[in-house]
């Protein structure tokens, strides 16, 4: 189920700009299936964590209110090209995924 994530980290001045795309349906649990009229069960990412060289920089909580295939952008100061960024998520069904990138 865990499909690949896309991650990119680039230096802009002294700040690293990190962009992440996660593949996830992000079902709120409130939407009805157009054909069956049944509620589509909730299935969304509940938390996202990011580290740079093992040190935590971002810890996010999410609800089903984040769009399908969530995009997340954040900026980190005090890092340099070559540092390793790791982003991981977990959803309400226990699925998880991790991706890493080197700041360039």
């Amino acid at each position, binding site marked *: 189920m865990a499909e690949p994530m896309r991650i990119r980290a680039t230096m802009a001045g002294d*700040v690293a700009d990190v962009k992440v795309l996660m593949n996830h349906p*992000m079902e*709120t649990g*409130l*939407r*009805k*299936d*157009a054909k069956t009229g049944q509620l*589509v069960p909730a299935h969304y990412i*509940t*938390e996202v*964590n990011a580290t*740079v060289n093992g*040190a*935590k*920089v*971002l*810890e*996010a*909580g*999410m*609800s*089903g*209110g*984040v*769009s*399908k295939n*969530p*995009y*997340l*952008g*954040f*900026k*980190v*100061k*005090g*890092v340099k090209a070559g540092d390793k960024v790791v982003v991981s998520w*977990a959803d309400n069904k226990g699925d998880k995924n991790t991706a890493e990138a080197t700041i360039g």
Partner: protein
Amino acid sequence: MNALRRNVLKGAAGAGTVAVAVAAGLLKPTQALAAAPRSAFEAKSVGDVLKNMGASAPADSKSITIKAPDIAENGAVVPVEVTSGIAGTSMIAIIAEKNATPLVADFNLSGGAQGYVSTRIKMGQTSLIRAVVTAGGKSYTAAKEVKVTIGGCGG
């Protein structure tokens, strides 16, 4: 012979229990990671969200910039960018006031993370997008209205 067999089985069962306990112990930290409790995400009104987050009366701030379209044609994908100019920003939360569950996401920033997040959210209908920022133990807020022509939460 039989007694030994019993002991071996007992030992195996004991090891199993330990493994389960370890697994249960491992689950806890993951659930406690996000600072805003899950109850804040389940709250149905903005007031309840703020209460559950422990930020019941945030002060209006002009140092928070919300970048979002004035009119979103598709409520399923509304790009939102929040920049906080407040020094020591440690948390940014995004709230879509008229969504069924208004709290969309919260971001706890640490290390060298800047007061900036960018994401895409769903909006059921035209409403205010509210950003709540925590810095130095205090809460600040700002809001921006986004008009939605097609909602993104219905079926």
